[in-house]
Each structure stands twice: as C-alpha cells, then as structure tokens.
C-alpha cells in the first residue's frame, strides 16, 4: 500500500487558507499559501492546542486563533520568542492534486533539536 493519501485538489483549499483532514485520531491542517504552496501540520498549536487550521495564513506562517502564536508552515516551529513546535507531514502536489504522507510526521533538522514529534 502506498504511504501517500490523496486529499483534495489544490483549488479546494482557499489561497491563504486551510482545510482539515483527519487521519485516525489525528486532525491535520492543510494550508495553501498565496503562491499555491501546500503544507500540512498537525492541527494543534504547541501553546494550548488551538486549531491552527482556523488561523490567518501569511507568507509561510500561520497565526493561531487562540493566543496569536505564529507557527512556521515549513518546519512547524513557533516563531521566536515563543518556543515549541507541531508535527508536520510530507506533502506532494501532482497535477493539481494534493497528497499527504500520514505514516509518520516528517522530521526537519531544525525541528528535531527543540521538540519531539510524538503525536
């Protein structure tokens, strides 16, 4: 079985917006930037668990709707001075279709040092 799951078309996600998708017990937020890059993060702010999918997307960041933490879409890391990170998932876009690898949270060198990705 392929580890990639098909989620939706790029156009199903509003530009500078997000949609959610659940995988098992985990809710994942799928973001689309102004230039149509797609990112996937666990839909849980490292601060107090706020739903990042509901935040305002700007550049390659999202601002959590609960207390305004800013999380990087590329690495899942909170922007300084806040500290924390949320799990991110590999995304592939093929022919306008969005695919996500839910099998394991992706690791980025920057993120590994400061947090664990245990869901």
């Amino acid at each position, binding site marked *: 079985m392929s580890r990639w*799951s098909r989620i939706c078309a790029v156009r*199903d996600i509003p530009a*500078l917006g997000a949609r959610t998708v659940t995988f098992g017990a985990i809710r994942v937020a799928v973001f689309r930037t*102004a230039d149509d890059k797609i990112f996937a993060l666990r839909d849980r702010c490292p601060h107090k*668990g706020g739903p990042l999918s509901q935040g*305002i997307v700007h*550049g390659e960041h999202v601002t959590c709707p609960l207390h305004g933490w800013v999380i990087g879409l590329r690495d899942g890391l909170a922007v300084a*001075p806040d500290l924390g990170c949320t799990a991110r998932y590999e995304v592939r876009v093929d022919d306008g279709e969005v695919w996500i690898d839910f099998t394991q949270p992706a690791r980025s060198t920057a993120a590994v040092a400061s947090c664990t990705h245990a869901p």
Partner: protein
Amino acid sequence: MQKQRLVVVGNGMASGRTLEELLKYAPDLYDITVFGAEPLPNYNRILLSPVLAGEQTLSEIILNDVLWYERHGIRLHLNTKVVRLDRTARRVVSEDGTVADYDRLLLATGSKPVILPLPGRELEGVITYRDAQDTRRMIEAASRFSDAVVIGGGLLGLEAANGLKARGMRVTVVHLMPWLMERQLDRAAAQLLQQSLEARGIRFLLEARTQAILGDADGRVCAVQLADGEPLPAQLVVMAVGIRPNTELAESARLHCNRGIVVNDTMQTFDPRIYAVGECVSHRGVAYGLVAPLFEMAKVAANHLAQYGIGRYCGSVPSTRLKVTGIDLFSAGDFQGGGGAEEIVLSDAAAGVYKKLVIRDDKLVGSVMYGDAADGAWYFKLLREGTNVAQLRPQLMFGDRNLGVAGYQGRERAAAMTDAMEVCGCNGVCKGTIVKAIKEQGLFTLEEVRKYTKASSSCGSCTGLVEQILMSTAGGDYSAAPKAKPLCDCTEHTHEEVRRTIREQHLLSGAAAMTMMAWRTPNGCAKCRPALNYYVLSTWPREAQDDPQSRFINERAHANIQKNGTFSVVPRIWGGSTSAAELRRIADVVDKYQIPTVKITGGQRIDLLGVRKEDLPAVWRDLDMPSGHAYAKALRTVKTCVGSEWCRFGVQDSTRMGIELERALWRMYAPHKVKLAVSGCPRNCAEAGIKDVGVIAVESGWEIYVAGNGGIKTEVAQFFAKVDSREEVLEYAGAFLQLYREEGYYLERTVHFVARVGLDYCKARVVGDREGRKALYERLQFAISDEPDPWKQRVDGIARHEFESLRAT
C-alpha cells in the same frame, strides 16, 4: 562575491543595538569589524550606578559577551582605540596599528566627560564618571579612603554620590547652580530630592565654585578648595559636570561636526559611506545623552545599512529617571513652564510628594514628579503623542490609575511586589518572570518585554507596572515607543496614513493597499490584514471586495471560537425581547445538536456554547433567527429595560426604541465591537452609562451618551446630545457611529476614538452640523442596507468549504 565590509568604531550601547538590529534585517550582508576602546564587550552603561552602589556586578550588566560576536562572525578588537580615519582610502587605523578597510563605516564614539580646567585636575584620585573603569576605580577608592567630593549635582553626580555613600564614604556634593539637577527639575522638586539625599547622609554645597584641587606629597588628592571657605578634605574627587560628544576622530578626518557629528534623518554623515549613532551625534542641532533616543537612532541606521532604505529619525523627547534606589523621580519635556504655559501643581511636603504638569494649548508639554512617579510613563505617553488633555484635565493630576482599572486597585508600585506576585492578569505573568526575561534576554523596551513574556500585551492595564519593572531592572531611561506607531511590523505607516492613502488613492483591496504602501511582507500578518480589510470595506462600501482570508476566524465562521476549538452561537434577540416560539426553537436545537452549555449573556441574549464547527450551518438553519454578530467587530446588542410599556417609572418606550436602533444598525461592521443600551427613565436599568452609545429617556425626549465602556477600564459615557424624537435618536446615534466607522482605527473602541479626536470634534460633526449629520447617516445606510445576514447566506450554501472537513482516500 565578496561581502561588503562594515567597520564599527565604538562598542557602546548605540553600536551594540545597531548591530543587533542590522543582524535581524540582514544577517549575511556584511563582513563586520568592531573596535572598542574599553576592555569590556558591550555592556549596559545605565546600570553602572547600581554597580557602584553595590546592587549589581559588572558581569551582570554585560549585554553581548564575546561569544555573541563570535557567533555572528564579527571581528572584535577590544581595548583598541581607533586613532586615524582615512576617508579617501576608506580605512581606519588603531593605536596598536590594526588596520581595517571599510565599504561602510559606523561611528559610535560616544561622549567624553567634561574635565574642568582646575589646578590639580591631574592628581591621582581625581576621576570622571563615565565608564566601567571609572566605576572600578571608585569602588576601589571607597574601600581605602573615607572622604569623597563630587563636583556636579546633576544626574550622574548624584548617582555617584549615592553609590559612594552606600559604600561607606563621607560624601560632599559641590554644585554651581542654586538647585540640584537644574536641567531636569524645578526648584521645589529639587529641594525634596536634596532633603531625602541629606537624610542618607550626603552633604550639599550649592552655588559653590571649585577653585582648585589640592594634593599631598605623594601626588594624591587630599582636598578641594572652594572659592570661599575652608578646603574640603577628599581622597577621591569625582568630576561629573557633564559630557560632550566625542568627535575627535571625525574631526581629524574633516567630517563635518558641530557639537557632535552632524547626521541627517537617516543617520548618515556628510560622507555618504559613513553613518553615526549615539551620543557622538548631532541631529537637527541636538545631541542626546539618554538611551531611548540612541535606540531609535540605532533602528534607523540599521535599516539603512541593511539597504532597506526606510525609516527616519525625527528626534526624541527625552525623559529622565534618577537611578537611586528608594527615590522615585521622573522628569520629561518642558518642565519649567512659563511663557503662556499653564501649570498644575500638587505639593505635599510632609508626605514627600511633588508633582507638576505643564500644559500648553491643551497639551501636556512637560512634567516633574517626585516621591510618586508611578504615572510617569502615562504622562510621558500623553506628552509624546501630543494628546489633547482638555477632557482629562480634572483627573489628570491623579494619574492613569485613577481611571479605574479592574483588578489592579491599590497595586501601583512594582517595587513593593514580590517576584511571585502576578503583574499581568490576562496572561498570568508574575514579576519574577518579567525580571528574568529582562535580564536574560537583555530587553530594553516595553515592546520587547511584551513579545518575550506576553505581559501587558493583551488588555494593557498593567503597562505602567511593567514599565516600572523594566525601569528598575534594565535601567532608568528605558526606550519609549516612537511617536507615531506603525500599524504593525509589516509597514512603517500608521493607521492614520493607511486610512488616508486608501481614501485618496481609491484602493479597493488590502492587497492593493499593501502594494501601494510598499509592505515589507508578501501578504501582511494577522495584525494588518484584518485592519486593511476593514479599512477598504468601510471606506469604499459596495465597491471594495471583502477578503474572508483576512478576517479573524470568528468573522470567517460567523461564530466565536472557544478554547477547545468548538464554537458558540448567539442568535439575535431584538432589544432583548423574545417569544415562546423562539425559545422553543432554541431548546430544540440544544437537544438536537447536544449543545453542552446554554448561557444568558450580559447583553440580554442566549449563548449556545460548544457547537461543533461542522454543525454550525444546520444549527443556524434550525434556529431560523438572524446572526447576533456576537463574534464580530460590529454592532452587538442593544440592551433595553422594559420602559413605559410596563414600568411604573418609565417615561418612554425604551424597548421599542432599542429594537428600532438594533434593526437600523445590525450588520454594521466597525473598528471594534459596538454595544448600545436604551433606558426608559434616568434610573437607567439598561446601564446605558457604560455603552458605546447609551440612550436615556427623560420626560421631554431622549438624552444620548457616547463612548462609555464596561471593559478593562470602566469608562462612563459622556453626554452627547438631547433630542426630542425617536427618529432623531436614530440619526444622531447612526451619524456618530458612522464617524467612528470612517475615522476610527481598527481595534479602537469608541472610548479611545473619542479620547483621541476629542468629544468636541464629534459633537461639531454630528450635533452642530445638521447637513453633515444627515450625510453621515446616509452613508451609514448606504454601507449597511444591502449587507446580508451571514447565517442565512451560509444556510443557503455559501462558503461551504469553511465547515466541511476533507477526506483522505
């Protein structure tokens, strides 16, 4: 490609801050070399006085240690004084022969203490008070000798005297002028200060001229000879008679100087490759010796060095605090008054409290405070921003605290708080956390403290406390925000400039506004996007296109997000009047969707809490009631009492009036939430006195009050107009709110809007100008009459994607 070379001469606070800012903007742009004449790396010069007084140590006041420079790849030459600047070869040479070539040069050579041309000035034991070395020498002298004379009763002189006294010396301060700190204090405040320093055992000789410094056989100072009187015994003499910009290097290179290295508003000197910041600079004819202006300069210089090319330094209003533990003193602006200025003075000599406010043309232009300077920050803000204080005048003297901040009564002195006590109730930040962050992160400004600790970043009512903690921890004259605050970090422009540009350039989208005003970020941030979206929509109704992605989730989902990610639903209940049928529908919805909490709100409505987002459209469909906009920066409720229909005291039908107002104004978006109330008689059961617009019935008609607020700071609404008919109530209230919609800043409540523009202005536009009022009211109706009910739209299928999850296949 080889990097450009930036050479920095001087390693004090100004250059340190410029480098920090520059590295934030452009970490890899330059190959950087720094020369510092002192042996220590960048340290906090303001805190030398607490070091002298034995309250801190030198190692505690280091801002950036040697490792910091290494980490950023900066070549640091300590103990290395630059003696030659060759502008043609673009090269500096130090005393020990170190050579550095530059593409850009930053001069931050600081200032030099003034040395009086007195006989004996070269004797051992005669020092100035300027740097860490001087501080060390004073500490050392205090351990060996018993008598000290400080020449100069200014800020530095008094701090030196206090420190030496604390270290056990007998200290006499010799001052030429008739009172202490004459450049910051008036005579009354200075006398109180002198009394309390005398109580600590410091002796003062005022209007005393030093004639000579006398030495012993070993060449060490032994006394100070005044123009009249006996010689004063002294084994240590501290000259603290002022500083002057250190322009030696610049002048030797024939760079234009005039009591400082002359710079323009971008901190560039007359040689375009050379920038200068800090105390060595003369900007618009002024040289600054306080840290706040230096930091503002640093920010501008860094911006230009980073080749961003935006930002101007337009000068600063300095403020001063004396860093002597236990003495609370604050001075800012033109504190002397005179020449048409008015003064408000509070003087309680027995309690040791003195306050003076100087007002000119209804604006605060200066203030001096002694004994109780807790409100200094607030006054300084009024002063810097040029706020019209005519309305505040009766309470002005009693300070910010007097304005009734919820939860902080009697808690106005940060010094008296323990580390465990909570400062910021909104974000649960205690004093110890703030102190720790300031020390460990090297914070200097309120903005930085907010960013790192979140303290005072929400409601702001503890701002004064946080500023006090900042002052006592980081040093006295901490940096104050620049006069005109930009909308957010994405731009230099203020709310006012952004609003004006959108109007003048006919900009119809937030994106167009960002392009026109050269936003630094590709699509703004969570702060500016909602503001811009509101500005274009309110300026160009029916023309501008709404951008849902620029709205906070509540306004996008048309419900209030809760801490667990569910939402709350508040249907509109006109004037707080409902019916059995509506209540039955609400009850059925609660059962059907298993809504866990049903709550009566303060605005006479019903709140259904814990609704799943995907259920929202169905809940709205089944409720079959209009949106209550309880989630929006818009008209919320119109609270009413029962009025003359039932009440034995009621003189008008307040319920009907309230419903008419709510029907006329609902769907009205505004800079912030808007709440109304209508009471049927002056007993005012609808609590109209704390609403954005409050209407109170009287026998002969209606009284209208505006700009009340029941939030963090309870603000009583102010009388606005008396009218005869219900139609007039609608027109006056609508016109006032339209004025607020057109000219208010995003997230500014009516109380702050009116405080900013003045109640008289609002009255002139609405009450005094009949045509203008009608035009305002018409524009309001034009803007909101075809605004749809967002719930109905979504029941009909609009924005379905907002409420549906995706499914993986």
